[in-house]
């Protein structure tokens, strides 16, 4: 069999397993065990155990667990409510102010949590009902929340960036930092879109009554109450940027910071810490068992000659870097509407990696756009974690409203990606400063 047939059979087998509802990690286990038997035979089983061993003991992957834990402590302790009040106060009595509150809050949440699902669920439960009760348009509110939640996997710390970095052999610190400017760009673009749309339909940008206006109190006090959170964010990113700590070490200091913040606001309880640890262990197991199970796939591709074959094919097609880039981006955009982001990532990275090298793309730039693309896939109807997280958190809005709200946000994010494609420096400036 040629490498192309093997690759197509492997992808077909995996997709068939996944779409039949087999757990994602089981799909990869089956694929790799069958692949080993076909390509090497039982003497290759040592290779299988080695790939599990090397992945499971890869210290950089602990960053995933620690950032999840940091987010869990901050969200479960309820300290993020303090953040909401402070942002609410600082935004002031702008017309349509809750849109600004959502985006600002999401940007800060994004720096505290790497999960779009967590932010969508939190905002869906807390802010969406408030927006509805104050006469904000349901669809625009849902769109703002979806856009805000989708900043989390882009703004550091990003769980996807850590996994991409460890699989594609790219600097995790570089990938984490690279998401900062794109995240802020997408937040700005979303605000521009929301206000441009609401200016055409003033009813979607209500004037709040006195009781609904921004909370009273000193802006300085509101700012002071945000300081502990800002210290956590600055210490996590600052340690990485300054080269003082690795991403894993800075994530661990972030966990310590989160505990200190919870203690400062009187929210540090044993039961909360226990729940946060339990949730973090579960999330870590669920994500990293997939990574462990899938890691061998790249070695099998190489063994089957697919890696070399793909590079030759990319050269023979002679499509040029731009068209090749477009194809490499359209595939995840379409597939991530239907399959899990992590599953797709683990399938695609070993296939993409030799092509990325052959085309001479800056790896940090390419993989940053790749993971933004996965994020967009996750908010594109009809299937996407972020959409269902919002719908699950707020049952009063219909699935149709959530879907309709998502499309303009997808448009905004695609516009942002075009900007990042045209001006790679927006992605590479900070990582280059790190080197």
């Amino acid at each position: 069999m040629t490498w192309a047939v093997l690759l197509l059979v492997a992808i077909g087998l995996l997709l068939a397993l996944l779409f039949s509802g087999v757990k994602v990690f089981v799909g990869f286990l089956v694929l790799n065990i069958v692949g080993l038997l076909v390509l090497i035979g039982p003497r290759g089983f040592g290779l299988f155990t080695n790939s599990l061993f090397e992945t499971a003991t890869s210290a950089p992957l602990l960053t995933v667990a620690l950032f999840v834990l940091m987010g869990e402590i901050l969200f479960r302790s309820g300290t993020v409510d303090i953040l909401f009040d402070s942002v609410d106060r600082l935004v002031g009595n702008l017309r349509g102010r809750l849109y600004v509150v959502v985006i600002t809050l999401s940007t800060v949440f994004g720096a505290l949590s790497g999960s779009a699902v967590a932010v969508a669920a939190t905002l869906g439960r807390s802010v969406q009902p408030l927006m509805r009760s104050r006469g904000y348009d349901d669809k625009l509110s849902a769109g703002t929340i979806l856009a805000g939640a989708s900043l989390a996997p882009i703004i550091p710390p990003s769980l996807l960036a850590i996994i991409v970095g460890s699989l594609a052999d790219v600097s995790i610190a570089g990938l984490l930092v690279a998401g900062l400017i794109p995240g802020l760009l997408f937040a700005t673009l979303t605000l521009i879109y929301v206000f441009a749309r609401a200016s055409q339909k003033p009813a979607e940008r209500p004037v709040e009554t006195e009781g609904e206006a921004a909370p009273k109190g000193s802006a300085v006090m509101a700012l002071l109450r945000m300081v502990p959170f800002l210290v956590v964010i600055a210490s996590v990113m600052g340690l990485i940027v300054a080269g003082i700590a690795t991403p894993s070490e800075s994530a661990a200091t972030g966990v310590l910071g989160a505990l200190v913040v919870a203690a400062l606001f009187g929210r540090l309880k044993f039961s909360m810490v226990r729940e946060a640890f339990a949730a973090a262990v579960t999330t870590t197991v669920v994500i990293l068992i997939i990574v462990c199970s899938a890691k061998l796939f790249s070695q099998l591709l190489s063994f089957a000659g697919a890696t070399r074959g793909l590079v030759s094919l990319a050269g023979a097609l002679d499509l040029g870097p731009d068209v090749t880039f477009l194809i490499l981006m359209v595939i995840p955009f379409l597939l991530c509407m239907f399959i899990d982001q992590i599953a797709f990532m683990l399938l695609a990275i070993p296939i993409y990696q030799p092509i990325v090298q052959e085309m001479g793309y800056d790896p940090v730039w390419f993989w940053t756009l790749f993971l933004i693309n996965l994020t967009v896939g996750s908010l594109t109807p009809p299937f996407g974690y972020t959409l269902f997280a919002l719908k699950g958190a707020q049952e009063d809005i219909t699935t149709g409203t959530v879907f309709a709200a998502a499309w303009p946000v997808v448009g905004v994010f695609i516009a942002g990606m075009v900007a990042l494609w045209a001006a790679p420096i927006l992605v590479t400036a900070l990582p280059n400063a790190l080197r």
Partner: protein
Amino acid sequence: MDNASSPAAPSFLGRVHDGSSKLLFVAAGLALAAAATLYVFEVTARYAFNAPTTWSGEVVGYALCLVIFLGLPEATRRGAHIAIDIVPSTLTGWKAAALLRTTDALAAAACLAAGLIAGREALNQLSRGLMTNAAHPIPRWWITAVIAAGLLSAALHFLRHALSRHPKGTAAQ
């Protein structure tokens, strides 16, 4: 992700299995706490006392393995794993039940195969006295045995799910 557990009341052996999974899950949590503490200690030792350790990176790597494979049985018991339920969610009645049983049985077989492969490798490593490739080596089979145990226990949970699942057991994405 779902949170469905085996619906039928477990037998004595089932309760032992569930209890051991919960216990291992607590150990996974402790491993995570230890890893976080070690990293904070490492940063402090390096910058405050100019005394970096040579072993924290290795220990943290082993701790991560403990988090994943000691936590795996309980995550499996709770049905927390990610799956894509586009097709399964369109099925109802016996078709849905049959598909669930089939996917759980396949998961049990895959985890059993993986666990046996890892278990056999652990025995090989033990007999050859193989150590980890690190500055402070430890017997490699210690870690491989944890991987094997986690996978085998998960296989058993999947098998129990397959044998006892009612039609509306799981929903994934």
